[in-house]
């Protein structure tokens, strides 16, 4: 018979809690995931999806209503930095003229550490329909290479 160990018990409890919390967040989808308001969202802004095609990494960031002039995308080695500003509406609107005010505004900056080295000269960014797509070609050494297997 196994000896009673309080740490194993604790570990088990922790895992069960984790599972419960996990289940909860999944159930509240999509609302848990679609907070695209800077400032109000309790997470980093903008939220990103990352796609790795082997030769390049593509990042799609959810950022509606940005001022394209204020957008700054820069890459240093394997770190990507996105900075910009979501502008207020016209500044001359009186606060009492608002019936509803749900959209948040403000400046933001986010740095993302990428899993590989990036060829910084070939990075391109495109902003359409409120989605910022950044294409980051990998450095030559970081690309996957096919190695032929010889059979004798």
């Amino acid at each position: 018979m196994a000896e009673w160990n309080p740490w194993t018990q604790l570990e088990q409890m922790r895992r069960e809690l984790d599972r419960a919390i996990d289940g909860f967040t999944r159930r509240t989808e999509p609302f848990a995931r679609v907070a695209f308001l800077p400032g109000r969202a309790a997470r980093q802004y903008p939220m990103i999806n990352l796609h790795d095609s082997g030769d390049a990494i593509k990042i799609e960031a959810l950022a509606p209503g940005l001022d394209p002039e204020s957008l700054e995308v820069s890459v240093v080695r394997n770190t990507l930095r996105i900075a910009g500003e979501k502008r207020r509406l016209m500044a001359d609107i009186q606060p009492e003229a608002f019936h509803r005010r749900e959209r948040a505004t403000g400046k933001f900056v986010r740095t993302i550490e990428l899993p590989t080295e990036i060829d910084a000269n070939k990075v391109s960014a495109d902003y359409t329909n409120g989605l910022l797509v950044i294409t980051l070609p990998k450095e030559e050494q970081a690309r996957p290479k096919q190695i032929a297997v010889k059979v004798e």
Partner: protein
Amino acid sequence: MVERTVAVPESQQLEASTEGTRTQERYITPPVDIYEMPESLVVTADVPGVSQEDLEIRVDNNVLTIQGRAKHAVTDESTYREYELVNVFRQFELTDTVDQSKISADLKHGVLTLVLPKAEAAKPRQIPVRVS
């Protein structure tokens, strides 16, 4: 303006029933700003990922409906994922003060701006005071 909460748009329900096996589509309520100008009401909504073709705005029976299909710009499977794009749907009830035939819409950088001009009767009017 009064917001009407409708869980699933009626037209969508009809579409879904013809397909039978498909589950109802998911929608989110896009965040909006509504403010009043002397001659109009302005509604701005964040609708990221919705292109002009996929956005439908209609006024029917005094109800303004914003409905859009959101699409990812990168359609390949994500390695790392923080969000999912969900279609948008929101309805507002209009009062008589809005001239429904003159509503204009503009979509820019994922932000929809609707201008709802006020009807002639609802516009502010200056009444000159005569001194006799």
